């Protein structure tokens, strides 16, 4: 016997008291699949969860109590709690997406820091011959490169003048 649940439109949630289950619809535009998986994973230790598609724009979720009996209030609570968890998962997913670059950079820095300072072998393996960055003003020039050439030029001028 199917019945509607208090607080839920009939097109959104329908309960089957005899089966102790409730089927409800989740808009895929509002809740990404990862959020649906996240909420479902939390609930698989409480009840049986089956996912499907109601249509192109909506997922269908069937929650079935492990106990063979249920009343409308228990099923209503189950759907309500799942909806809250789904919203929480959707929010976390959104935050993770928006801050993905920061999270990855922070994680990499934390891991590389935990590895400790580089060893002598690591330092010896570093290649210092490549240009690390553009230097249009010629600031990053070693002292030897900057002054030795001028000294050679001066010495050659003194030699020719005598």
């Amino acid at each position, binding site marked *: 016997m199917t019945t509607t649940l208090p607080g839920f439109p009939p097109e959104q949630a329908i309960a089957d008291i005899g089966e102790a289950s409730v089927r409800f619809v989740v808009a895929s535009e509002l809740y990404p699949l990862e959020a649906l998986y996240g909420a*479902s*994973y939390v609930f*698989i230790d409480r009840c*049986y969860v*089956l*996912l*499907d*598609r109601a249509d192109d724009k909506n997922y269908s979720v069937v929650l079935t109590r*492990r106990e063979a009996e249920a009343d409308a209030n228990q099923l209503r609570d189950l759907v309500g709690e799942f909806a809250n968890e789904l919203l929480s998962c959707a929010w976390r997913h959104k935050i993770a997406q928006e801050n993905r670059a920061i999270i990855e950079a922070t994680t990499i820095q934390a891991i590389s820091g935990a590895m400790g300072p580089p060893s002598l072998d690591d330092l010896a393996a570093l290649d210092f011959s490549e240009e690390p960055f553009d230097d249009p003003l010629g600031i990053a020039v070693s002292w030897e490169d900057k002054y030795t050439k001028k000294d050679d030029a001066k010495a050659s001028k003194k030699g020719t003048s005598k």
Partner: protein
Amino acid sequence: MTQLRFRRDLYDGKSVDAAVKAFSGVASFDLTEDDAYWTVAVTATGEHSERDIVGELANAALALTIEGRA
């Protein structure tokens, strides 16, 4: 016999297979497929209720699918 349908774009096929194998000792299964679904027909063979086996099978397939994505 109870039929359980797993949407192909929501469940991983290997996960469904693994879940079916995990429960092979308590039920018999008949697997079919079409463009949209993997369908598993479940018949309990032991003392456990078919309702429980179907529910646990669904949870196992879902859990394996989700964990495989991590």
